[in-house]
């Protein structure tokens, strides 16, 4: 008899006396094996994938709601809920037909009217959806399984827009739910996907439970990211939120959880030593580190000041601050697009390559007219990645002779303050740090951060007609070669004007118990095809 048994026995005896025999039924071994316990990257604080765009919401929503198309591992859109589509020769009228037998979690069939309502709500919030909406003549249900989208002009990236995995995805909901104002949160979570959301068990900030939807009809093809047959091989998936990485690591080692989405680099060596745990790169598309300079105010309203910083920055310094000494986790990135994807380009990337030239950078900075005014650098201390980058930047600017006003605060404040267009001394800012999911940087469509359309651009409000011209060229491209050419020119223009400063490409690990099988690499955790043995 071991110590734990003794403790259990003693406490159990005491407990019997106190609680009149409220002993817990032991969880059967089989039932435990049918429940996959997963530690997500963040807390699932809300559950409307159109209203809120956090990745964690998107990841959970991908279990509960299906999409018309899904992006596969080759980054190609594939049919998902759709059986077939037709587009007229002039590219303006798309007619889609749904697969037969699709059902919502309340047992109702998925009909065209549901799709029309869902796409309308999505299009009001999604950047690509907004582009389609601007071209839209009508979006109507033809019959129960057929719907039609008529545009004023062709939109060649239609299928990609419906398949893409960046938030918000065009998830299909029942019409009654999808009719909710896109700026108000839904409260009914009836889905069309392979798992049902157990709302009664939801403890926001702590636990979310998903149950297998028995009536889901998967496609016959092999699953590939968001495409193909989404076969659920467990009965339940429990998301257990753990704010403390050390606790998550201990829980995984102890077998209290089965899969940890993103272990921090510091704890990976401990996990790798455990014979019961597998560790591998989670998302091959990784992340792109970034700091943005405010193009509206001195010193960074002058391109020479922005280029001076680019000439001096060491991506290795940034990456080591983020991932430590594990060289498998990072690579230099002399550009803006995700490495090892079809459109990746290094055109114009010389400024980020080779030995860092502080003397030339200081000279260029002086030419820009910089005279020692404070540079307000916003850093979110509660996010390790931004904090690490902020520390490196502060050092870099000081070495360049700049007067750094280092504002260390929380992400809520940075998120709010970076939207201020006032001068830095009046509540505004000069620079802030963040990072972008590599999956959102594979082409210009979901890549808000690389856009440079002035007032309409992302925070920092870069204005570069050269970049915008190539974004349009990419949207109009008729084949991959034309796309590559446009993105190469875009990359060069974005580096010349320094839309933002890429600090490198980094990956992160995912870790799971060895009795779990079927985990695949991808931009989000895919639960289809994942099984667990006792």
């Amino acid at each position: 008899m071991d110590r734990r048994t003794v403790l259990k026995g003693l406490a159990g005896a005491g407990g019997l006396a106190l609680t009149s025999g409220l002993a817990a039924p032991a969880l059967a071994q089989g039932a435990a094996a049918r429940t996959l316990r997963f530690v997500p990257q963040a807390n699932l604080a809300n559950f409307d994938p159109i209203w809120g765009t956090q990745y964690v919401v998107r990841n959970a929503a991908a279990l509960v709601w299906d999409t018309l198309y899904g992006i596969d591992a080759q980054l190609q859109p594939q049919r998902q809920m759709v059986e077939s589509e037709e587009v007229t020769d002039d590219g303006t009228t798309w007619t889609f037909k749904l697969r037969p037998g699709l059902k919502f979690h309340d047992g109702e069939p998925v009909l065209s009217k549901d799709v029309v309502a869902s796409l309308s709500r999505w299009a009001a919030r999604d950047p690509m959806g907004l582009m389609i909406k601007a071209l839209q003549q009508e979006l109507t249900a033809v019959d129960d399984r057929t719907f039609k989208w008529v545009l004023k002009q062709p939109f060649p990236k239609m299928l990609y827009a419906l398949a893409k995995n960046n938030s918000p995805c065009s998830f299909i909901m029942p019409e009654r739910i999808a009719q909710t104002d896109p700026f108000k949160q839904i409260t009914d979570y009836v889905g069309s996907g392979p798992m049902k959301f157990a709302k009664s068990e939801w403890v926001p900030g702590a636990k979310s439970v998903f149950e297998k939807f028995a009536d889901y009809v998967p496609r016959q093809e092999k699953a590939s990211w968001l495409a193909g047959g989404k076969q659920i091989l467990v009965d339940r998936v429990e998301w257990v939120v753990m704010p403390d990485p050390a606790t998550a690591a201990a829980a995984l080692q102890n077998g209290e959880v089965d899969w940890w989405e993103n272990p921090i680099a510091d704890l990976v060596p401990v996990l790798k030593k455990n014979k019961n745990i597998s560790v591998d790169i989670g998302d091959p598309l990784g992340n792109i580190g970034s700091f943005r300079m405010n193009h509206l105010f001195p010193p960074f309203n002058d391109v020479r000041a922005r280029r001076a910083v680019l000439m001096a920055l060491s991506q290795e310094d940034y990456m080591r601050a983020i991932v430590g000494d594990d060289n498998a986790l990072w690579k230099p990135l002399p550009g803006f697009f995700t490495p090892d994807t079809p459109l990746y380009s290094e055109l114009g990337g010389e400024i980020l390559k080779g030995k860092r030239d502080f003397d030339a950078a200081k000279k260029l900075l002086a030419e820009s007219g910089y005279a020692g005014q404070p540079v307000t650098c916003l850093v979110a201390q509660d996010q390790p990645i931004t904090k690490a980058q902020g520390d490196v930047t502060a050092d870099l600017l000081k070495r360049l002779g700049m007067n750094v006003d280092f504002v260390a605060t929380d992400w809520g404040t940075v998120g709010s303050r970076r939207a201020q267009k006032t001068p830095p001394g009046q509540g505004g800012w000069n620079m802030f740090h963040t990072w972008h999911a590599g999956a959102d940087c594979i082409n210009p469509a979901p890549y808000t951060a690389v856009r440079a359309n002035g007032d309409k651009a992302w925070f920092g409000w870069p204005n570069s007609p050269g970049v915008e011209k190539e974004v349009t060229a990419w949207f109009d491209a008729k084949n991959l070669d034309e796309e590559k050419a446009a993105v190469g020119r875009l990359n060069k223009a974005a580096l010349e004007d320094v839309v933002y400063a890429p600090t490198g490409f980094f990956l992160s690990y995912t870790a799971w118990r060895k009795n779990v099988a079927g985990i695949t690499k991808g931009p989000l955790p895919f639960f289809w095809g994942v099984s667990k043995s006792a």
Partner: protein
Amino acid sequence: MLSYILRRIVATLPVMAIVALFVFSLLYIAPGDPAVVIAGDQASPEDVERIRQSLGLDRPFLIQFGDWVWRILHGDLGTSIFTNLPVSAMIGQRLGPTLSLMTVTLLLTIVVAVPLGVVAAWKAGSLIDRAIMAFAVFGFSLPVFVVGYMLAYIFALELEWLPVQGYTPLSDGFWPWLENLILPAIALGCVYIALVARITRAAMLEVLQQDYIRTARAKGLGQGGILFIHALKNAAVPIVTVIGIGIALLIGGAVVTESVFAIPGLGRLTVDAILRRDYPVIQGIVLLFSFVYVLVNLLIDVIYTLVDPRIRY
């Protein structure tokens, strides 16, 4: 006594109103905007503004405050900006784990700290006394998260006696409930045990020098009777006071403990709500905590009259 309790409860209302106004004002002027957090990185300023409008955050301060007070007076703590769930339901979900953690910690403290303090006073100046006080200094000096990690490493990872994280409600069984609370309660209780043990020792030392203790000894009363019947009862007022004040320590410590042991309690809810600027949740929790403090103070005053009959209100 009843009229005193009623008067005290009525007197708490203006205190809570001032706390409410303070908290509401503080959140209003604090930087950060929940609409920005909700809208995400891709959102345009127009999207953010529409979300602000839909949440009513664009209304003037006094209207927002008035609306909030009106709802509070009707027993409605509002709805979370993020989860769209009633704040009362969210607090209800989280109250059980926090109350459980605090109860086990309090019991552990009383069971361990008071006897330690009594023994230290009894053996004042001896090796036992010095050992107990050294333990108290040690317990007082170690941060909760350090103790938490150490306990988790030893008892959960190495020995595999106890789970490292989580919470099981009491309705699922006593042992499943308790096994999740043992390590967090020890981690959280260390500081508290040290504090109560020191106060108990000091109070007991003072009482043990009183004439009536000498009289009791002269009458031939046994050591146990002297310590636990005569002395401890008369030393109880400062001990009860420090236990009551310690509730504040427990609430503060629970935030860290709940994070280290992944307990879904009010502490974690508070931190999450603050980081996200979920105003209604923050306001609801602060009101609850204010109420708890007032209640604890009242309870302490009532206990005074029980342990010391000379005290009358």
